């Protein structure tokens, strides 16, 4: 008790250096705990990119690849799933709902996705939140398009704007389909998921984009792909923009890139209604089950499907697998914060150590009134522990203050929701580790004081 009293009073006496030391430990602990919180938040928001979907189905390939192109809008599938096969699984008795996805096109760098009303009806993210329309209506007609929130904001599109959708993915699009002007009819509310960075058309609209020359029936799809990918140097970028950017002057380029009967086809095309288009394929589809118990069984059935090479993945499992792959980044981050805490504690060590010289007199007095060297050691170790404890608690408090102040801001700015929870095992573990480290480090100045006290005895030259 006496030693604790001495330690606290001694620390209070050196209020300035004490508060600096506590402050630096608090900052480093706040960083450690804060990074841990952000990491948890990132992980949760990552695995909540999509929710309530039991299976994602596509053509056979890599699990992560399927996840990437279906959920994150990255990469592409080499093969598609036929419409017949899709319907067959969609009507499976264990299946409650499906969302068909048809990918592969882009508009000014944003992915164009063909889907149907099931998307708005069934797609869920972050613990079951629905996709909502911020303005406008859902797609209904063949050339209707709905924009993700980021697309509308970054490209500055509004309802009623006509846009051209190109084939293939890339910053530079092509005006092959300028005869098929899509009209913005809706903008989705922000979700902070990849949904915000996509453009949604109807499945039929997506088929229509693939038509060579603008007339149904769509010719060989593979050919259209080649076309798009083979001509990146084309002047297309001058008119890969909105429709209105294509006045008469561009005629020469157009002749280059597209058949001359485009204008003719356009007249035909605009008269094509959504009912006239037959959807032939999807890239992948999301499946919701009537009963979760059947997920594994259905997954096996799909994987064993003989008519077409198909694959089903459980999003949660695949997302976890993917996150594991990113684990080294996490480890690195954590390592850095651990070192920051060590630096904070080293600052404490330095401060205690350098204070020893001016405290030799104090140590001699304590020795004179009967304090053994062990008392001297415990005094200094206790001071160190007090500093580390105060710093840890301060750091934890700082995290909560910052979190409660910045939570909504962070969510609005970067879409990262960091949950505020009472300190859990991991926080207590951190605090325990920091205090233990403080305890161990306290022995460095303490042992010096011990040696000095033994050597000085009662003769202290001040």
């Amino acid at each position, binding site marked *: 008790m006496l030693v604790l009293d001495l330690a606290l009073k001694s620390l*209070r006496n050196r209020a300035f250096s004490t508060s600096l030391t506590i402050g630096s430990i608090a900052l480093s602990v706040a960083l450690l705990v804060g990074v841990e919180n952000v990491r948890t938040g990132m992980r949760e928001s990552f695995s909540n990119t999509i929710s309530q979907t039991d299976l994602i189905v596509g053509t056979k390939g890599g699990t992560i690849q399927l996840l990437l192109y279906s959920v994150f809008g990255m990469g592409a599938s080499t093969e598609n799933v036929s419409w017949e096969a899709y319907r067959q699984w969609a009507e499976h008795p264990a299946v409650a709902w499906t969302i068909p996805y048809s990918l592969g096109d882009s508009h000014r760098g944003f992915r164009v996705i063909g889907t149907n009303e099931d998307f708005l009806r069934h797609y869920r993210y972050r613990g079951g939140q629905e996709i909502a329309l911020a303005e406008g209506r859902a797609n209904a007609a063949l050339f209707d398009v709905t924009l993700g929130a980021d697309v509308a904001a970054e490209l500055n599109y509004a309802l009623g704007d006509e846009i051209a959708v190109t084939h293939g993915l890339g910053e530079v699009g092509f005006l092959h389909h300028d005869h098929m002007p899509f009209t913005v009819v809706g903008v989705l509310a922000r979700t902070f998921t990849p949904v915000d960075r996509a453009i949604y058309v109807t499945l039929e609209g997506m088929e229509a984009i693939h038509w060579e020359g603008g007339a149904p029936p769509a010719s060989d799809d593979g050919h259209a792909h080649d076309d798009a990918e083979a001509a990146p140097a084309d002047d297309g970028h001058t008119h890969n923009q909105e429709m209105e950017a294509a006045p008469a002057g561009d005629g020469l380029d157009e002749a280059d890139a597209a058949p001359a009967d485009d204008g003719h086809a356009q007249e035909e095309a605009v008269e094509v209604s959504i009912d006239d288009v037959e959807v032939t394929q999807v890239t992948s589809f999301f499946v919701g089950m009537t009963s979760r118990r059947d997920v594994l069984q259905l997954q096996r059935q799909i994987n064993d499907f003989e008519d077409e090479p198909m694959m089903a993945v459980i999003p949660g499992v695949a997302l976890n697998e993917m996150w594991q792959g990113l684990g080294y980044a996490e480890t690195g981050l954590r390592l850095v914060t651990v070192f920051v805490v060590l630096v904070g504690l080293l600052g404490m060590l330095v401060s205690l150590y350098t204070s020893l010289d001016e405290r030799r007199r104090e140590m001699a*007095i304590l020795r*004179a*009134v*009967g304090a*053994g060297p062990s008392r001297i050691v415990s005094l200094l170790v206790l001071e160190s522990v007090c500093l580390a404890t105060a710093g840890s608690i301060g750091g934890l408090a700082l995290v909560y203050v910052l979190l409660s102040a910045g939570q909504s801001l962070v969510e609005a700015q970067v879409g990262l929701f960091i949950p505020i929870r009472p300190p859990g095992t991991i926080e207590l573990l951190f605090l325990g580790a920091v205090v233990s480290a403080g305890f161990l480090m306290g022995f460095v100045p303490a042992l010096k004081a011990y040696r000095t006290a033994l050597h000085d*005895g009662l003769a202290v030259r001040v």
Partner: protein
Amino acid sequence: MGFTVDVRHLRFRYGGGPWVLDIPELTLERGTRAFLFGPSGSGKTTLLGVLTGVLKANAGEVRVLGEDLASRSGAQRDAFRAEHIGYVFQMFNLIPYLSVLDNITLPVRMHAGRRARLDGKGVKETAAQLADHLQIGDLLKKQVTELSVGQQQRVAACRALIGAPELIVADEPTSSLDFDRREAFLELLFQECERAGATLVFVSHDRTLEGLFSRTISLPDINKALH
């Protein structure tokens, strides 16, 4: 018994250095007010370190109150000092972050044995009484940094005297005081030592004070390490 201090054939040196102390014999009877003098470097403070058990003799016997400190462990010597010895430094006697009261009561809080010597009186009560005797009763609540040097030395005397230890050791406690205050301080110190029946070892190089003591010891005369 009879002797508070009974030193025989004491030899001491720091580490592997030259001998600092070589004292064949030094005895102090109970209740003695001893004046120990010697020039700087004659081993005064070192001798006090050995007598209080802070330093351990390399050879010989250092009996204090019959206990041979030369054959005791460090922890035993620390406990012995806490219980039986009061110490006053030349200056800077006080722990700067403690109040006057906390400084005075430090020894009894340090060691239960010293606390047991309070005759059943409370710690604060005893401290206040001592402070009154030394005429600093009104300073108990103050921070030590607010005190004059003379006041600080009286606080240090209170701390040495609390719990009535048998041996009071003072290392030039008056050298930072002017002459008038020196005598006043010594008078109070003597008074309290007498009241407690304590033996006083008072070190100084200032022989003008010699006459106030019952016995004078010249360290150069008894310390053969100096020859």
